[in-house]
């Protein structure tokens, strides 16, 4: 077995599927009429057995690592769970024969045409209810029927619909449709991710050229997105409207937007002016032509859908109506998911398409029909009487939420009676689905084959209108979900747990290779990112600030912990008061602790240190800072490299360790802090280094520079706490303080290579304040900030200097003109009368610069978020609670009787 890839015979020891016929027997079309293993299984079985179990296990571990690196996860940022759930992919794909694929494609394609035709009728002439093909109750009583979307698309408006069709296969091999996802279905990105992973671990299977590729489907999607733009532009501006990092499928949104080459935005990035939609960017308002939405209908427009929460984009529905923007899926599409429609689909199909349904649904009865209601109540009664009754799932006729579905076999007598009463009081609001047990597929689990139930999600797109005709495309593959629980509702719900499989649709024809780079290569325009959205820029700035602030706090904590754990008595460590003063200035310990005459009680100091690290109520505590880093980083997840994201994952673990630390374990804390300094430096380094030198990078770096210059000045201010102190402190104490200062400012090595061991305050202040070659000095930060500010959008053509340019120029000049010996001269009273005012001025200037950048770039386009007041720790949290788009309550009907 030197080269397993070349083997084709399943006779090796450690074969994966020793009995392929029984392993695959759960899923129909395994055997040919001649009782041979079908070709599509045969190829796979030979291949897997050729690899053998150990090799499969090795490759599967590789796949898991790759997925981890990609950050493939569900619930990337779940506050409650604390950690993301990794996406699970089974290494054994599900092979689909060419014949089966032909059937599925035909059936799903037909349903796609049917659903778009139903949309047009429901939000248009409504002939289906007028002529009795859909019972009117299913619209009139349906909260998903959004009357505000009536007649939204008139004339030749082009629309694009992206649907998901959930199917399962019965034990007899027949396919049945469970449900449709029609408003913003997720899963296609995960299917693509699965394929990418599997094609890396089983390259030979794809080189054989019989597995149909997914890329052409996404290429068509991309083409349709361009075609529905009403702007007629050659390169319309397309955005994917995300539901944000809190969404369980955020990973997929990031992944797909990158794959399709569209900008990922959130509702607050968009604004409606006139009848058009714009993206709020650093460079101003930038028009948006097409929105691929991943948010539900009801969250799209707070004005029209009567949402008091004001989430969404006010005026979007009007913009769509006026033709100013194209939104896919069309607004109101959620109504097509209505479970109550299911029994009527074959009839509607005959009326609208003149065809018989190719794929049936799982048998569904709508209790609004007397005969169906009688059947369901009869089943319930039988079951209450303890007799065998047909297994039924009762669910809302309007809601596809799996939690509302109940299996009557699992109910108590009392619950059955209650259910029967609910059905009687509103029969039209209930459907009963036959409880089916989906077929099983072999999965690879802990080095062995297990059988798991499977449902399959197929994806399709339908474009209609200008330039699109009414062509339907079905993705030749599927997201197959596997679970040991046969509940098809659970498995087809968006937040299903359990594993997934890649699905291989085999073709009789050789498959040609196609990539996604198509039109991006034929009319490539150079994109610079001054179209970075203000929200992202704001988050990048704060990411930089929080990372740097965390690093600063970690450094001083490390210095203090090192000394606490040494054998020296605290009261003879001469630099200890200085370190306490630094911590007090950073507001992580109380100020009395830093009082020159404070007695050093070890218990008090330890308690305060633990608070500085673990407290959730102290705003600047390490725990809170890390929480901010994590939160801001998650909100710009799509901008961060996978590696830096990976490092952030480690920081999450560190954070968890911080939480689990027992009290007063000072020595553990020392080790923890040292490790965290490495981790956070790695994160900052990776995040910045792997970013293009665009605006996102600039804003993150500006955040770091602002914070670092502020930190260095705080250190210098703490060094000379008061005038008297400066007088009193003899050179001996000062030299210890200076040593500690260099340590906290991470400049020890630089100093000692230059000045050997003599510690004097003039060269140290020079090194930390003025020296533009020391990356820790304020002068260095100012020089970088000047470069950034000059490169900000809109500043190049400006005939005059902008306010932020003036501030950086002023600060840089002050520093450059300073003569160090002059600066450090003491006045007759023995005070450093030139240094203090300079430090104070610098600190004020840095604050003003931060404010100005925020004001100019991040709030000038009237973002919904109020400007964030720079250095104030609370400002960040409060900002979200401040002004935003609000829904004004209308006047009420308040006529008063005279």
């Amino acid at each position, binding site marked *: 077995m030197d080269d397993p890839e070349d083997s084709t015979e399943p006779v090796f020891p450690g074969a994966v599927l020793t009995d392929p016929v029984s392993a695959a027997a759960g899923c129909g079309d395994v055997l040919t009429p001649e009782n041979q293993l079908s070709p599509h299984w045969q190829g796979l079985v030979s291949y897997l057995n050729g690899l053998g179990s150990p090799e499969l296990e090795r490759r599967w571990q590789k796949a898991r690592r790759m997925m981890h690196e990609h950050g493939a996860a569900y619930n990337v940022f779940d506050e409650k769970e604390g950690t993301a759930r990794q996406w699970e992919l089974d290494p054994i794909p599900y092979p689909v024969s060419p014949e089966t694929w032909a059937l599925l494609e035909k059936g799903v394609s037909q349903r796609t045409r049917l659903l778009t035709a139903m949309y047009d009728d429901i939000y248009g002439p409504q002939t289906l209810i007028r002529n009795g093909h859909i019972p009117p109750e299913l619209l009139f009583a349906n*909260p998903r029927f959004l*009357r505000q979307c009536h007649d939204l698309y008139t004339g030749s408006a082009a629309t694009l619909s992206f649907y998901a069709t959930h199917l399962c296969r019965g034990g007899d091999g027949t396919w049945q449709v469970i449900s449709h996802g029609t408003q913003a279905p997720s899963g296609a990105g995960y299917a693509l991710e699965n394929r990418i992973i599997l094609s890396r671990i089983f390259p030979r299977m794809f080189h054989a050229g019989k597995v149909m590729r997914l890329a052409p489907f996404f290429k068509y999607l991309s083409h349709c997105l361009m075609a529905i733009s009403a702007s007629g532009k050659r390169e319309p501006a397309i955005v994917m409207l995300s539901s944000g990092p809190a969404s369980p499928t955020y990973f997929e949104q990031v992944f797909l937007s990158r794959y399709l080459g569209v900008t990922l935005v959130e509702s607050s990035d968009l604004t*409606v*002016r006139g009848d058009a939609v714009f993206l709020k960017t650093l460079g101003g308002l930038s028009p948006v032509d097409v929105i691929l939405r991943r948010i539900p209908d009801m969250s799209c427009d707070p*004005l029209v859908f009567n949402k008091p929460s004001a989430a969404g984009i006010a005026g979007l529905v*009007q913009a769509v109506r006026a033709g100013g923007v194209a939104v896919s899926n069309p607004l109101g599409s959620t109504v097509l998911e209505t479970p109550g429609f299911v029994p009527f689909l074959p009839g509607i199909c005959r009326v609208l398409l003149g065809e018989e349904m190719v794929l049936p649904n799982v048998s569904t009865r709508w209790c609004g029909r007397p005969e169906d209601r009688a059947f369901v109540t009869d089943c319930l009664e039988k079951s209450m009487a303890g007799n065998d009754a047909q297994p039924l799932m009762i669910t809302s006729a309007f809601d596809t939420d799996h939690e509302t579905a109940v299996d009557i076999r699992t109910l108590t007598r009392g619950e059955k009676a209650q259910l029967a009463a609910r059905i009687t009081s509103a029969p039209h609001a209930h459907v009963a689905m036959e409880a089916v047990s989906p077929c099983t597929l072999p999965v690879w689990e802990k080095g062995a084959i297990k059988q798991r139930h499977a449902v399959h999600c197929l994806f399709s797109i339908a474009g209609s209108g200008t330039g699109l005709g009414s062509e339907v495309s079905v993705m030749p593959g599927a997201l197959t979900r596997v679970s040991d629980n046969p509940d098809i509702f659970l498995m087809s719900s968006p937040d299903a747990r359990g594993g997934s499989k890649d699905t291989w649709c085999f073709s009789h024809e050789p498959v040609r290779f196609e990539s996604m780079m198509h039109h991006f290569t034929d009319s490539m325009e150079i994109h610079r990112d001054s179209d970075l959205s203000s929200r992202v820029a704001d988050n990048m700035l704060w990411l930089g600030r929080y990372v740097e602030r965390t690093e600063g706090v970690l450094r001083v904590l490390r210095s203090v912990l090192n000394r606490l754990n040494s054998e020296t008595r605290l009261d003879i460590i001469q630099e200890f008061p200085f370190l306490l003063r630094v911590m007090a200035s950073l507001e992580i310990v109380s100020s009395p602790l830093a009082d020159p005459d404070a007695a050093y009680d070890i218990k008090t100091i330890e308690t305060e240190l633990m608070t500085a690290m673990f407290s959730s109520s102290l705003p600047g505590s390490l725990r809170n800072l890390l929480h901010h880093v994590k939160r801001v980083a998650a909100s710009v997840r799509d901008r961060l490299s996978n590696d830096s994201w990976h490092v952030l994952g480690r920081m999450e673990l560190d954070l968890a360790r911080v939480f689990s630390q027992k009290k007063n374990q000072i020595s553990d804390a020392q080790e923890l802090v040292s490790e965290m300094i490495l981790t956070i430096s790695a994160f900052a380094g990776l995040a910045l280094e792997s970013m293009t030198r665009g605006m996102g990078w600039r804003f993150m770096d500006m955040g770091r520079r602002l914070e670092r210059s502020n930190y260095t000045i705080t250190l210098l201010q703490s060094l000379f706490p008061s005038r008297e102190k400066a007088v009193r402190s003899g050179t001996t104490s000062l030299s210890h303080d200076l040593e500690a200062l260099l340590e906290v400012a991470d400049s020890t090595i630089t100093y000692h290579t230059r000045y050997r061991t003599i510690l004097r305050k003039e060269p140290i202040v020079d090194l930390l304040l003025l020296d533009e070659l020391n990356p820790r000095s304020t002068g260095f930060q100012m020089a970088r900030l000047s470069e950034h500010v000059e490169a900000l959008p809109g500043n190049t053509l400006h005939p005059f200097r902008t306010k932020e340019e003036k501030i950086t120029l002023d600060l840089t000049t002050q520093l450059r003109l300073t003569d160090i010996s002059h600066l450090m001269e003491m006045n007759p009273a023995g005070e450093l009368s030139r240094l203090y005012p300079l430090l104070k001025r610098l600190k004020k200037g840095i604050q003003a610069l931060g404010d100005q950048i925020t004001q100019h770039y991040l709030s000038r386009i009237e973002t919904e978020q109020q400007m964030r007041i720079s250095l104030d720790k609370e400002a960040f949290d409060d900002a979200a609670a401040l002004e935003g788009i609000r829904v*004004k309550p209308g006047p009420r009907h308040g*006529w*008063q*009787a005279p």
Partner: protein
Amino acid sequence: MKYQVSHITRYQYRETASLSHNELFLTPRQTPAQRCTDHTLTLSPPPAAMSRRTDYFGNGVTATTVQVPHALFEITARSRVELHPPPAPVPEQTAPWEQVIAAVRRHGTPEDLDAFQYVFPSPMIPVSEDMARWAGDLFPPGEPFLRGASRLMERIFTRFTYDPGATSTTTPVAAAFELKRGVCQDFAHIAIACLRSLGLPARYVSGYLHTQPPPGKDRLKGAEASHAWFAVFLPGTGWVDLDPTNNVMPFDQHLTLAWGRDYSDVTPVKGTVLGGGRHQLSVAVDVIRTD
């Protein structure tokens, strides 16, 4: 009967507002009994975009965007309306309520089908057994629908107290029902909830009421507010209005703006605003008879 209406809605902001999207249901409907002969809608500051369309229920709705900085936003609707009320049906002669339910369920005519949608719960009006019980005795078997509905109107009028301080636009129907207090909007919602809980079709009507000043006194200018009532469906006849706030069947003093399932379908002025801080809302309505 001819009327001239002016309806001014004013938002005063404490800080400058920069962007405001609005949806206005301020255009009187054209119906067989009502003709709107003139209508103007003026916004200050002037809007960047303004478009009018007909909504799902046939109401005229105007969508506008104001995108200049403003501290005061004023919407003025002026309309001239003529009422030609048909003779009111005699409640005792209307069809039994059971037949009404059967007719809309059968929905043999387009009118019956349209009325069918007003049988179900809507965003602001749930149905409940409590409501059905409270109104149930008004509909004994064979009771003519309009007579039962009139008695329901009277019951609300007598058992509820008009109290603007008790409720707000967002008070749930069940809460107002519990309090037995509220304004015209609450009373109309409660009447509709009772009827729908019994399976009967009822809709919400937004409009104006012309009132006579008390003898010897002048009309107070702008003292009126917009008004709301409900309507029930009589198969073969159509919709009949009932005003539970005044216990009258509207005839020639109620002017109709719009109708829908509940207040949320026909809110006269609704909008979103960016900036502005706190705001003060004031409404002035004048209905003057001109013939």
